[in-house]
């Protein structure tokens, strides 16, 4: 009895902390419609600010007052940073699509991670315990920390305070009104920009408070941002994006599941949380208290970018084929290895863009399928001594099976909910791989995944990779030009028109999702054999971001875009990463610059360039027609 009570109380204490983070996230989404990845970074900065401020303040103000003054200072610091992010970055993204927003705010995450290590170092930093709350409360023979009791109270108190702000102040009324209809509030004369900045500051303050209050329980570390933001995403999705009460209920639900579920699923309570989220979303696709997202109508879709004329393209492809076939003859083994990486990343990016750019399906968890392919192949070799040939078949099949199951859930959801679910799925697989030591090798992964004897040499293996990746890219390319690819694109352009010409969009999207998953799985399986090892990185959010960055810098609206991105990105990584300690900061900056300045990527830039070049030499059919209509 007391044991259950203790666990429930533990769950409620963590629910409070989760709520503080999630309610800021949901408020920000409600008003700005931006899913703010950087919210986790603010939480982390709050924690680091706390450990920094607390020593000098305790010296000046004494242990008790100093502790709480440091909390207040951390909250203010976090609010200021969040407001700065709004002014510098988010403001420019309000009209972009969800994916660009997610990616850009993830760029901020990367930059903050390196900054934190630069300023505070890579080691965990312990903070002091809360004065007056260091003791324990006895519950039968169990002892429960007094600080956790305090934490349990924080959640409802903050909830009440926020409710009063939202319902009893003019500012709160504006926030609620903006959540309903942003443009209307602008028309009423409210100062839109100031409102956005202040909401970011409010959300930042709450995240900072959560980070600072976490310090007496756990040290500040440079990984707390991504782990908290994943949980906060799950909570906002379960509660309904934009609903504060929903976030409160969902935080309690998730907190309790984590505390009680540890008995059922000691390996990964996140799996249990995911199951609850999946069930909630199947029954209520907009979360417990959310409202259906109104997708922007009228967007008709742009014709795909074309950089070269069909004949020039054929010529370029032939030249590329000759280069790729002969490359090992004149390249060092290192460069052949690099070329393998380029081929695999190109396939990975191409598979993502098949559903993303072509199909308009928002995916923020493509690493799931790369990772399933890699682990599927590697574990078959590791546990059951499968030969490479069989493992290369199994990997893509495992990934396709994953896409089949997860696609069923994801494709029923719209927009940002779908993006969040794809992210959550990838994170759950990651945590499974991380925690299921006996099967997946945990953090170390599995080693000794080498090609069969005949393909042991780098050059032979290169040809294996070349053959399989080119075949897979070719098949997907062909599918893009076939009815299936056209139907996916039709669904991106106008779902309503699709339905009105008899197309069952869901089944087509499902097929496309599985095909893309299988192709990503193939690149993952080949990746495992090219490295000889697989670890949790292949399932991590960083792998997902790699795939998105490749598609983004190449250009989403061109079939060759992901291939360009898949070529450039591994090369950048190979040549720039060794030169710098701040690779993540560099990558974050590349993401921000691309999103802000070249949203159509390299392909869009090149096609604009070639259009300009062509139009100066010959008038296009459009300008000819205009001229003839004018009677010239």
């Amino acid at each position, binding site marked *: 009895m007391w044991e259950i009570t203790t666990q429930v109380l533990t769950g409620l204490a963590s629910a409070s902390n989760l709520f503080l983070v999630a309610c800021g996230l949901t408020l920000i989404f409600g008003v700005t419609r931006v899913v703010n990845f950087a919210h986790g970074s603010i939480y982390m900065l709050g924690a680091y600010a706390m450990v920094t401020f607390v020593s000098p303040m305790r010296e000046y103000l004494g242990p008790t007052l100093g502790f709480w003054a440091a909390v207040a200072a951390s909250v203010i610091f976090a609010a200021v940073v969040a407001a700065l992010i709004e002014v510098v970055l988010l403001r420019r993204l309000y009209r972009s699509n969800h994916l660009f927003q997610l990616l850009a705010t993830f760029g901020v995450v990367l930059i903050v991670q390196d900054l934190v290590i630069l300023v505070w170092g890579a080691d965990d930093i312990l903070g002091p315990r809360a004065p007056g709350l260091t003791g324990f409360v006895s519950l039968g023979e169990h002892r429960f920390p007094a600080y956790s009791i305090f934490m349990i109270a924080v959640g409802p108190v903050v909830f009440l305070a926020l409710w009063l702000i939202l319902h009893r102040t003019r500012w709160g009324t504006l926030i609620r009104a903006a959540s309903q209809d942003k443009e209307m509030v602008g028309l009423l004369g409210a100062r839109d920009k100031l409102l956005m900045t202040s909401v970011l500051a409010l959300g930042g303050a709450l995240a900072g408070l959560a980070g600072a209050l976490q310090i007496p329980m756990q040290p500040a570390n440079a990984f707390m941002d991504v782990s908290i933001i994943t949980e906060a995403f799950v909570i906002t999705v379960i509660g309904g994006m934009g609903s504060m009460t929903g976030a409160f209920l969902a935080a309690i639900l998730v907190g309790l599941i984590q505390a009680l579920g540890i008995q059922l699923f000691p390996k990964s309570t996140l799996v249990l949380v995911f199951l609850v989220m999946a069930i909630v979303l199947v029954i209520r696709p907009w979360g417990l208290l959310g409202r259906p997202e109104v997708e922007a109508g009228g967007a*008709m*879709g742009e014709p795909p970018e074309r950089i070269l004329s069909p004949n020039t393209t054929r010529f370029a492809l032939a030249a590329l084929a000759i280069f790729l076939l002969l490359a090992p003859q004149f390249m060092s083994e290192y460069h052949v290895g690099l070329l393998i990486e380029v081929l695999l990343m190109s396939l990975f990016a191409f598979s993502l863009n098949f559903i993303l750019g072509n199909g308009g399906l928002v995916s923020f968890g493509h690493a799931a399928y790369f990772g399933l392919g890699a682990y599927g192949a590697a574990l078959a070799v590791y546990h059951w001594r499968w030969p490479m040939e069989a493992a290369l078949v199994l990997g893509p099949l495992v990934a396709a099976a994953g896409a089949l199951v997860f696609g069923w859930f994801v494709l029923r959801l719209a927009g940002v909910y779908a993006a969040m679910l794809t992210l959550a799925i990838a994170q759950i697989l990651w945590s499974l791989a991380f925690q299921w030591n006996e099967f997946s090798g945990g953090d170390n992964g599995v080693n000794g995944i080498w090609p069969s004897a005949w393909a042991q040499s780098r050059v032979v293996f290169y040809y294996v990779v070349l053959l399989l990746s080119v075949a897979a890219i070719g098949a997907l390319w062909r599918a893009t030009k076939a009815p299936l690819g056209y139907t996916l694109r039709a669904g991106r352009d106008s779902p309503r*028109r699709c339905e009105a010409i008899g*197309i069952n969009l869901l089944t087509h999207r499902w097929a496309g999702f599985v095909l893309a998953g299988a192709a990503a799985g193939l690149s993952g399986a080949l990746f495992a054999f090219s490295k000889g090892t697989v670890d949790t990185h292949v399932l991590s959010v960083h792998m997902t971001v790699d795939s998105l960055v490749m598609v983004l810098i190449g250009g989403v609206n061109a079939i060759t875009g992901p291939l360009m991105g898949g070529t450039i990105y591994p090369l950048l990584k190979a040549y720039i990463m060794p030169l710098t300690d701040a690779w993540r900061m560099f990558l974050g900056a590349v993401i921000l610059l691309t999103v802000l300045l070249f949203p159509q990527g390299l392909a869009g830039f090149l096609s604009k360039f070639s259009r300009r070049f062509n139009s100066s030499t010959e008038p296009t059919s459009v300008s000819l027609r205009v001229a003839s209509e004018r009677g010239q």
Partner: protein
Amino acid sequence: MTTLLEVRDLSKSFGGVKAVSNVSFELGASEMVAIIGPNGAGKSTCFNMLGGQLVPDTGGISLNGRSIGGLPPRAIWRLGVGRTFQVASTFGSMTVCENVQMALASLRSETARPWSRMQDLYRDEALQLLERVQMLEHADRSCATLAYGDVKRVEIAIALTNAPSLLLMDEPTAGMAPKERFGLMELVTSVVAERSVAVLFTEHDMDVVFGYAHRIIVLDRGQIVAAGSPAEVRASPKVRQIYLGDEDPGSMERVTA
């Protein structure tokens, strides 16, 4: 005349507001009927129930004696109902011809094929349809670059792919210049006459309604207040009252002249 579409006691409420209540009417083969009424009269709700975008609360819809109420839009299309939208919707990233080819591929349930080239599928058939709507010369232009009136023509070509027995047109001439409107309606009347397609349309432009409809159904606050030939509807005092109020009985003639 044989009955093509039969609507019985159709009702739909949104949160206590009766958008459509107890609407019943019939449509004969090859008949051209307009549904008119002031804003909020329930025209669009009615239309969306016929097209499958909304599920009726009560009442029945049958096409050739077969019940279609509550079916999804794609199933209704397969039974021979074409549809154009108030805000024309086509696939902007595709060419005019590819838009029609998509519909033809869907008609033959070939949209999931991953290998054959879409651009080669049923191109000749698509071009024939485009010729019929006078869009042949624009066949290879991207739909995103077309003038709005031309997008409407593409929608009609798409709607004709499954040789429909009924065409639902929501505000066919909305957003078009007055001169273009008659061009489009002439096209519609000649196309449906040669293919024996019945047309049910909503429309705000009274010149179009009275110029082309064989019969007119007038909705107000979700209910049918008048129905009959253009002359009967024009003479109905109820209709005058809805459209004009009582003060100015002369302006109806101006509108419909």
